[in-house]
Structure formats: C-alpha cells, structure tokens
C-alpha cells in the first residue's frame, strides 16, 4: 500500500508541475505584451510600464515562473490588477459559495442516484427499470444551465418558492442554503443520471456473481442477498465515479453561477476575463485544476485501500 501511495504521489507531483507549466505557458504565449493586452489599446505607456513592473515582466520567464509557483505554495496568489486586492482574498470570499454548492450538488446527486440505480437493477427489465433508464437518458441529454433556467421559471417566477438568483451570505445559514438549492438541483440532475446508470450496471454485474448464488443457496431472500452482498460490492466503481463527478460539479458550477448570479469563483473568472485581469484568471484556474487533481488522487488512494487487487496492478 505504501509503495502504491508513493507511486501515486510521484505522479500527482508531476501532474501538478505540468499543469502549472501549461497554465503559465498559455498566459505567456499571448500575442504581444501581456501588460498591453490587459490594459487594452488606449493604455498610456507609463501605465503599461507600471503594470509590467508589477507583473515582473522585466525579469526572465524562468524567474517569473518560479516566483509564481513559490507564491502559490505559500498562499500568495499575487495582486489583482482591477480589484487592487490580493487574489487570495478574492478567492477566499468566493470559495464559500462555490465549494458548498459543489458539495450540496454531490449530496443531492448521490441521494437521487443510489435509490434509483438500486431500484432499477433489482427490477431489471420491468416497467420501473425502463422508466428510470428512460429518465436517465433525458437527464444525460439536458444541458444543466438550461435545466437551471427552467427551474427558475417554475419555482422562482411562477410558484415563487425560491428567489431567482443572488446569494444572501452565510449570516443566515438557512437562507443561504435555500438560495443554493435550485443551483444545486440543476447541477446534480445530469450527474445523478450518470451515477444511477453506473450504480445499476455495477449492481447487475454483482447480481450475476457466484457469491450471490451462494448467498441465495444458503437461504437468504433476494432482498437480503441484494442489500448484504451485492450493493456493498457494487459501491466500489460507484465511489470512483463520485470522486470524478466532484470535479465536474466544481467546474460545472462556473456556468450555473452565471445563471443564478451567485458570487462564486465562476463569476470571479468571468469578471476577470472581461476585465482582462490575467493574474486572477491564471490563479483561479490553477486553484481549480489543483483541487481536481488532489481529489482524483484521494479517490485513487481510497479505492486502493478498499480493493487490494488495484495495488498489485499498479
């Protein structure tokens, strides 16, 4: 297990290193001068010179890259050009919208998908199975931002149960959760559809295994065999998918935040893009990629801890 973990850790570090190189390079290859790009065509030469100095453009590329990375490692994400505040501060204000939203959606998606997948598998081929599988086909095909608009139309505009957008802050946790509910449902539904399909097929694989026949032969009912033996084993691939989905939810949240005017990382990225504040864009993108890579690493480790066969394979 330790050898496996060390191997995964090495590839984690390489991934993070290459990711930082790629993101840095994309910003570097902007045609012309990044400072002039950020300030637009009407910028005064002395403003450009000031920004150049602030971004350290008078130094070599290698110095700048290492300066950026050591800054990131110490939690210093640089200074936003448009907001005139440290990027770390901008991020820490907004992460408390984006992260809870992703977690909320992940919980919802799991709560919908597990019963649906288990129900469909246990009634394979029956009307319940066909209905659920049909619903998942629709769920996979729906663009989540459109689903979000439909939710707003029904539950905010017509029924007035929820507000159509905005975020009141965490001072009143109940209100805050309420304002994240429609966005979380919109994010969760397509993921729940995928997860339910994985749950169903993984469970069907298990139900065909010899140990289920043994369990039935020793006198367990179908229901007992399903819950005691099949579901538990079917969970392994499902957990991997849940881990991967977290990254989709975090990134997908960027678009859903736009629909609901939520002040999260997504809005920060878009405001920075339109303000051409590349320092913010670069750091937020790196933070998102970093989170996704770390989560995938954690899933790999958890997976190997549960299933010893994987350690041998690696």
């Amino acid at each position, binding site marked *: 297990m330790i050898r496996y973990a060390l191997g995964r850790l090495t590839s984690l570090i390489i991934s993070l290193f290459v990711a930082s190189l790629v993101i840095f390079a*994309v910003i570097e290859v902007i045609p012309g001068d990044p400072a002039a790009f950020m300030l637009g065509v009407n910028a005064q030469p002395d403003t450009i010179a000031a920004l150049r100095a602030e971004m350290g453009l008078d130094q070599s590329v290698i110095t700048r890259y290492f300066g950026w990375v050591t800054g990131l490692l110490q939690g210093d994400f640089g200074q936003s050009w448009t907001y005139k505040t440290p990027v770390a501060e901008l991020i820490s204000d907004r992460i408390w919208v984006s992260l809870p939203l992703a977690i909320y959606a992940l919980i919802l998606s799991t709560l919908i998908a597990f019963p649906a997948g288990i129900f469909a598998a246990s009634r394979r081929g029956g009307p319940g199975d066909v209905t659920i599988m049909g619903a998942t086909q629709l769920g996979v095909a729906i663009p989540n931002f459109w689903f979000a*608009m439909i939710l707003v139309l029904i539950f905010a505009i017509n029924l007035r149960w929820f507000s159509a957008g905005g975020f009141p802050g965490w001072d009143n946790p109940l209100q805050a959760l309420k304002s994240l509910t429609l966005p979380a449902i919109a994010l969760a539904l397509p993921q729940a559809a995928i997860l339910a399909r994985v749950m169903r097929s993984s469970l069907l694989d298990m139900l065909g295994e010899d140990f289920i026949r043994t369990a039935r032969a020793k006198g367990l009912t179908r229901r007992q065999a399903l819950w005691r033996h099949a579901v538990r084993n079917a969970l392994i691939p499902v957990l991997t998918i849940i881990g991967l989905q977290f990254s989709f939810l975090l990134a997908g949240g960027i678009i859903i935040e736009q629909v609901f005017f939520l002040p999260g990382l997504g809005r920060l990225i878009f405001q920075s893009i339109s303000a051409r504040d590349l320092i913010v*864009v670069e750091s937020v993108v790196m933070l998102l990629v970093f989170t996704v*890579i770390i989560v995938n690493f954690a899933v790999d480790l958890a997976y190997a801890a549960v299933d010893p066969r994987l350690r041998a394979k690696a």
Partner: protein
Amino acid sequence: MSRNLIIGAGLSVLFICLAALSFIWTPYDIEALDIPNKLQAPGGANLLGTDHFGRDILSMIMMGARTSIAVALVAVGIGMALGIPLGLLAAARHGSLLDELIMRGNDLVFAFPSLVIAILITAVFGASAVNAIIAIGIFNVPVFARLTRGAALPLWERDFILAARVCGKSAARISVEHILPNITNLMIVQGTIQFSLGILAEAALSYIGLGAQPPTASWGRMLADAQTLVSIAPHTALVPGFAILLMVLGLNLLGDGLRDWLDPRIRVARV
C-alpha cells in the same frame, strides 16, 4: 434494428437535414430585425415564434444546428485524428517508454477540468467558434487514444496478427491494415457519444459568451439572450433548450443502438 437505433437515427437525421436545408433556405432571414413583431408566441406566422429582435426562432434553430454540428464534428475529428494514431502507436509499442509517455500524457489531460481549460483558452485567444472547437477537440484526444489502445492490445495477441508478422509486415502496416479495421465499429460508437458531448459543450461555451460570436447563430447564445426574457416569453428559452435536448438525446440513442447493432455477440445474446 432496435427502437433506440431508429429513434436516435431519426432525430439525428432530422437535425442534420435542418442544418443542411439552412444553406439554401430558411423561413425568414435571421439577420433582418423586425422589432414590431418581437416576442411573438409560437404558432402564428412564425412557427416557433420570434425573439426579442423579432427574428424567426425556427430559422435561428436551423442556423444554430449548423454551428453546433460543425463545431462538434470538427472537435470529434481532431480527437480521432490525433487520438487514434497515438493509441495505435502506444499499443504497437506496448510496455515501452513511448507507451508510458502517451498514457501519462492522456491521464494528465483527463485530470484537467475541461470547461476550465476551455475558458482559459478562449480568455487568452479570444472567444470564437474556432477556439471553442480547439478547446473541445483537445479533450477528445485522450478519449480516443485510450479507447484505441485498450481495444488494440488484445488484438495484438491474436493469431492473425502473428501471421501478418510472419509475413514480414511492419508494426505500422499491421496497425493500419489489421488493427484499425477491427476497431472501426468501436470508434464509430464512441464518435457518436463524443459528438453529443461536443454539442453540449458548444452550447455551454456559447451560453457564457465564449463560443460562436454574433452574427453566427448558436443555440447556446439563444439561451443566453432568453435568460432575461424567460418570464415574459418562455418560448425563447424552451425552443433552443429542446433543440439541444433532442439532438443530444438522438445522438446518445444512436450511439447505444449502433453499439448493439454493430456488435454481433450482443445481437446473438438478445435472440
């Protein structure tokens, strides 16, 4: 033929025909503004109603289908053109440093949240349909590379490949003449699925303003325009949304149907 295949093929053909028809004819000119006639409900002179500029929504859906299909098709093309050769190469040199490099590179691209990178690319190089294609296309490469390698590896163990090697064929020739024809079905099925994902990605990118730019019509941007109108004219949001939903649903069903139809083993099992 299964029901999936028929419904899926029907929906896909419908949208492809709409897109093709838009080259020669649309009910109205989508660049002509007709403000007095704005936000008409569906069913009148404009079959699917009009938007906030009085433009005919059916015509815009037809033009939008063109954009969606073009972007997704080229993105899948990029993924196949780069991914399949990489996968074949990795399989042919199985276990070598090259194989390891290709697969680790794949893992890395996989680990990136695709949407975030698409945003980064369009932020730096500007929002356009071409940049959207590149951003979506890059993430198709590892999908095809991984699938190709996975399917090609067991083939390399088969007797007919051994026979080809005995005949003195090179690894490259074997890959092209014997491996590739045997994985074509798989690639077609995966291509259909990636195509539908491409349609969704294009819609999402245009919705946030990073895809095709005006005056090019796009379903995602129609939805972005509709966002503030949804309470007074719900059809402006419903129609483009259903277009995306039906097109993606059609492609997914087509992919499922093709997989069952092209794989004789599954067909036999069903009989």
